[in-house]
């Protein structure tokens, strides 16, 4: 597994941990990100995604463990790392009382971009963000999508080799989200490595590889396909019926069903054997006079994988606790 050539590795961490006043935010995680790939860091809020990204960007010093970003040590070479990376935080941290151009000028100054490259880079950012007609507008008046692309542009001014994005699409409309991912693909096409955190499962499908983090621990690592194959040995049945809450309660008690989760107004039932479960669900719903409109086998979404991983994790911790 660790046979990869170190020259092709953009980010690697070994037993990386972060503790805040006795609370473990990140617990001994290990992974590698290859150059030019989109690595997605997936997990619910508070799982340790942002803490990890902030350690890698040199914003937060790790408590223990090792890490390398662009071949540089995250303990001792934090300042050098800053030249190699671009970082975009959750809030698209721009100065709202400054205009588009003034924001770009400020970050160009901070990154000491030479006068002759400055004009080219500035035009590139403005064009990329589609802000040609808004150069002189205060950032405050721009929509979420524009702000997001301007923030991305400012993080890319110095042409970093690795881009860290912390929940880059939160609070952005679906069209802007789509455009944003097109930009990300374009960047990786030019060899930029992208490390992105998200809690949107559909976005996770766009990534080349994924790490799933839960409660500070890395619970799974692989391509989206690998994760689905490896961690979803069971089948997922989608149940569309009336009174989904009531249906969930009765289906939960069936021996043929491992677990049920509510997805919108459908139910996803994870079952070891599809045929037995199919019959059992039909039966129990008619017994309870719940009208079933559809019951079929579906290919598991990443969300199913994630939910089942978390369930497994929860059970492991619980039995571990009893054993001790």
């Amino acid at each position: 597994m660790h046979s990869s050539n170190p020259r092709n590795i953009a980010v690697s961490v070994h037993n990386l941990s972060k503790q805040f006043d006795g609370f473990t935010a990140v617990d001994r995680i290990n992974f590698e990100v290859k150059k030019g790939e989109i690595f997605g860091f997936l997990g619910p809020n508070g799982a340790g995604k942002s803490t990890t990204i902030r350690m890698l960007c040199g914003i937060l010093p790790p408590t223990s463990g090792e890490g390398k970003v662009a071949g540089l040590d995250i303990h001792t070479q934090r300042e050098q790392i800053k030249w190699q990376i671009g970082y975009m935080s959750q809030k698209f941290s721009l100065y709202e009382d400054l205009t588009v151009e003034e924001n770009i000028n400020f970050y160009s100054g901070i990154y000491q971009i030479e006068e002759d490259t400055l004009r080219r880079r500035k035009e590139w950012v403005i064009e990329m963000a589609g802000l040609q007609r808004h150069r002189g507008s205060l950032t405050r008046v721009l929509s979420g999508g524009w702000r997001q692309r301007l923030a991305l542009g400012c993080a890319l001014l110095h042409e970093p080799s690795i881009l860290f994005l912390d929940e880059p699409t939160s609070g952005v409309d679906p069209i802007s989200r789509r455009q944003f991912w097109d930009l990300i693909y374009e960047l990786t096409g030019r060899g930029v490595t992208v490390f992105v955190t998200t809690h949107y499962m559909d976005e996770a499908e766009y990534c080349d590889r994924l790490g799933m983090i839960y409660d500070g621990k890395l619970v799974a690592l692989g391509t989206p396909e690998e994760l689905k194959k490896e961690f979803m040995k069971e089948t997922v049945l989608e149940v569309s019926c009336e009174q989904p809450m009531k249906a969930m309660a009765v289906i939960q008690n069936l021996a043929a069903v491992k677990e049920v989760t509510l997805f919108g107004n459908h139910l996803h039932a994870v079952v070891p054997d599809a045929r037995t479960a199919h019959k059992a669900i039909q039966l129990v719903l008619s017994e309870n006079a719940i009208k079933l409109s559809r019951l079929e086998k579906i290919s598991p979404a990443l969300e199913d994988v994630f939910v089942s991983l978390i369930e497994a994790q929860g059970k492991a911790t619980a039995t571990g606790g009893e054993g001790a």
Partner: protein
Amino acid sequence: MNLRRLAAVAKKECLHILRDPRSLYISIALPMMLLLLYGYALTLDVDRVPMVIWDQSETTESRELISRFTGSRYFTAQSFVSSYKEIEHSIDTRQALAALIIPTEFAQLLGGGEPTPVQLIVDGTDANTATLALGYAQVVALIYSQEIILQKVRQLRGQVLTVPLDVRARAWFNPDLESKNYIIPGLIAVIMMVISALLTSLTVAREWETGTMEQLISTPVKGPELITGKLIPYIFLGLLDVLLAVLMGEYLFHVPLRGNVALLFTMATVFLAGSMSLGMMISIVTKSQMVASQAAIVVTFLPSFLLSGFIFAISNMPTVIQWGTYLIPARYFITLLKGIYLKGIGLEVLALEAVLLVLFGVIVVLLANYKFKRKLV
């Protein structure tokens, strides 16, 4: 420290100041308003105390005594009354702060060898004015008594007698003992202390709140570049305030500026660098604009007002509190300003204060940088 990055930060901070009406208001309008308000209201002079007079005697002698009072600039005759009831009323309604009662037998008693009683009533609710008014009244009465005695002696012996002691008091640097002359320079120091700390207390906290600080930490910009870059435009803003205050002192309050203007502005720069770094440090530590601005006012206003020697002389304070005043930078700045303004003296006398002010600035700047570094861990 990289100059390019420093310039980028300073330029950005200038734009923030120009775009934010609130910071412009705090930095320009507020100090002017405070200076006007305190400059006019905070006078410690007791001038033309309004006085009612009950002249029961109604003689040449009694009128002479009255003219001694009203002729001095310390008292003005508000009205003439003829009962205690009227006196009570005018003091209750604050039409008068003092009352002079001359008894019927004044003229007969005067010069009769026995002391002649004259009653003076003051409004004790205003203790400071009352004390001063009493003092003035005693002096007026004493001089009048002295003249009567001397006249008497001359009449009796036919020779001119002189008073054995002649104290000729001169109040140097402020011959008319006008309180505005020492209040205005002190006021400039106190106001600048509060305003400068308040202004910078918002800058770093704002970046923490909006999340731009996190972005900055991920860039190669360093703490000292950020802190210095932010300080530069604010120091210029502060110097503009000092200039406006000095102009107001000159043309509005007519406070004489006898010393070196260049020295005044150099010292102001040092003082501003220190107090602004203090505001910055508060901003770094609290991370919230709300808390930072309140802390900045609490930390600067009362100590600068009470413990700097602005109104209350430090030498009269208990020893422990006197030690504490060394921690108040306004103390040094006030001494410097009063020295430059009223005495026209320079560094040859004020070197210690100047050095201590520089020391304060250096310590606070270093501390702000240290705190900033600590916050990142």
